[in-house]
């Protein structure tokens, strides 16, 4: 009786699971099938004529420029993650543990900036970067992503650092530690979980970004990250699905690895970051 009553619950959950996984499985299977097979039959029929190849991956990584794209994504995302973290932690420390006039108002400004859509900044920032001769270069993206990432980073780290036990900080001060020593020796090590979640979020956010890269890099293939290259392939290849699926999977490999290896940090980081612009 109990099993029967629960049957709809199980059915719905299994259907949801299937609907969420099937598109990803289809992508992976298709990326490993020979081109004529992908065009001629659905990926779910693969077991009827199993034939697999790595040719699609070889093709997208070399001829279609995804190898370069992967390196570019890395060269964009790593500094764009490293630069804002410490800067945000400094500000969070000040917001949490120092008294100064305008503290409440400035922090409220940060919270408001959380909701500002990135698009609002696009035109003026593009003009600034053009004036500085930075459009089409990686530093343009490092700087812009640092700016865009800071409100969330400051907000989350302030809440975490503000929640540290005051006696720990006090005892550091009694031991004669200055603000810098207290921060680097006590505050930062204690904040490691928050910083790790934030780093994962910021890295994936930059890795997955299309709009900022498209706008400030101007679509030059030599500097284009994976997302920009793939968006270009979608329009140029049309229904070359054997290549498009392989290309998409190349861009997913690193996020999926992070997902499976660092799940607790990852979930915390993404859930916290979902409020971002």
């Amino acid at each position, binding site marked *: 009786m109990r099993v029967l009553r629960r049957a709809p619950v199980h059915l719905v*959950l299994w259907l949801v*699971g299937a*609907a969420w996984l099937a*598109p*990803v499985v*289809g992508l992976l299977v298709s990326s490993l099938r020979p081109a004529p097979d992908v065009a*001629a*039959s*659905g*990926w779910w029929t693969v077991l009827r004529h199993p034939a697999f190849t790595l040719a699609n991956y070889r093709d997208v990584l070399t001829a279609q420029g995804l190898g370069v794209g992967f390196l570019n994504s890395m*060269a964009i995302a*790593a*500094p764009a993650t490293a*630069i*804002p973290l*410490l800067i945000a932690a*400094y*500000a969070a*420390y*000040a917001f949490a543990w120092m008294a*100064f006039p305008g*503290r409440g108002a400035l*922090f*409220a400004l940060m*919270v*408001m900036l959380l*909701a500002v*859509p*990135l*698009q*609002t*900044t696009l*035109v003026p920032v593009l003009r*600034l970067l053009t004036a500085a001769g930075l459009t089409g270069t*990686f530093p343009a993206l*490092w700087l812009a992503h*640092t700016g865009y990432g*800071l409100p969330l980073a400051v907000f989350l780290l302030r809440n975490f650092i503000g929640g540290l036990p005051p006696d720990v900080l006090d005892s550091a001060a009694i031991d004669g530690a*200055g*603000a810098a020593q207290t921060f680097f020796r006590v505050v930062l090590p204690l904040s490691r979980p928050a910083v790790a979640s934030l780093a994962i979020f910021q890295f994936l956010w930059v*890795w*997955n970004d*299309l*709009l900022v890269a498209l*706008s400030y890099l101007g679509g030059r293939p030599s500097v284009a990250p*994976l*997302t920009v290259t*793939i*968006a270009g392939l979608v329009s140029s290849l049309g229904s070359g699905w054997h290549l*498009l*699926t392989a*290309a*998409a999977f190349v861009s997913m490999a690193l996020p999926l690895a992070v997902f499976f290896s660092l*799940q607790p940090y*990852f979930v915390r980081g*993404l*859930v916290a970051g*979902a*409020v971002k*612009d």
Partner: protein
Amino acid sequence: MGTLLLAAIALAGAPAASVVYIVAAELALGRLAVRPRRALRPWVWLAPALAFVAVFLVYPTLDTVVLSVRDATGAAWIGLANYAFALGSRDALIALRNTVIWLVLFTGLVVGGGLGIAALAERVRYDAAVRGIVFLPMALSFTAAGVIWKFVYEFRPAGAPQIGLLNAVLGAAVPGFEPRAWLVGPPWNTLLLIAAGVWTWVGFATVVFAAALKAVPAEIAEAARVDGAGEWRVFRQITLPLLGPTTGAVATAMVITALKVFDVVYVMTSGNFDTDVLATRMYHALFVDQHLGRAAALAVILLAATVPVMAVNLRRLRREAAAR
């Protein structure tokens, strides 16, 4: 290769430089008397963050408002002409309408779907696996999700074997079903783009609701069950009201996500076939029409739509501060 080297230098050098800055500034502060040191110290620690935020968020937002009443190159004042264009042309009206559809359907489906999945998963033993599976797309870019779903919606003429999952499933399940090119015609294309967006984001809502459900005291629900209340009534009259604040938080986050949605539309249809939204329209105005004023006006409309969300966030912040 030179760019990679530059990236490596930035990766190590920028954080190192910021450490040097703090240490040097603290040494300088140490030479001051107590009062000026106390007064200056917070600004030393805040300065780098405030500088970035000022240059990349505050100034651009204000400048966008100014540019929105100027012409294509930002040179001359032209009043509200850009807004008249943004709200008057057929293309812009379609983008506006689609953004509203995204706001309502995307937000509603993510909140409702996430709540439903979390509530059902709570009743089974493999709940963590369900949450993991629906959360997985959160790791992927909208660009990858766009490719994934474009492939699901792929169309082959009737008679040929379908390679897109949607046409194949409907063909197998519905007698006499004619395969369709889903993405080329409204209203299905916009609805299916929204479906791809919901697929990506529902995991976020599921995880947040699952955490909130765990915090609902089991005794209250148990007492109601003893009094003879059915599962559905317990959920509706006890659990749901307790989830109010969580629902609000998830909904605000999704409203912002829906407002700025760009990638999924850009990748799957490029805004063709009446699927444009405000963000793709703005990209078009900026890079195809090269009209700074119109792009800025569209951005201001987006910004205005987020103002209520900002107000809600600020109120929540104040309430939390008061509770501390």
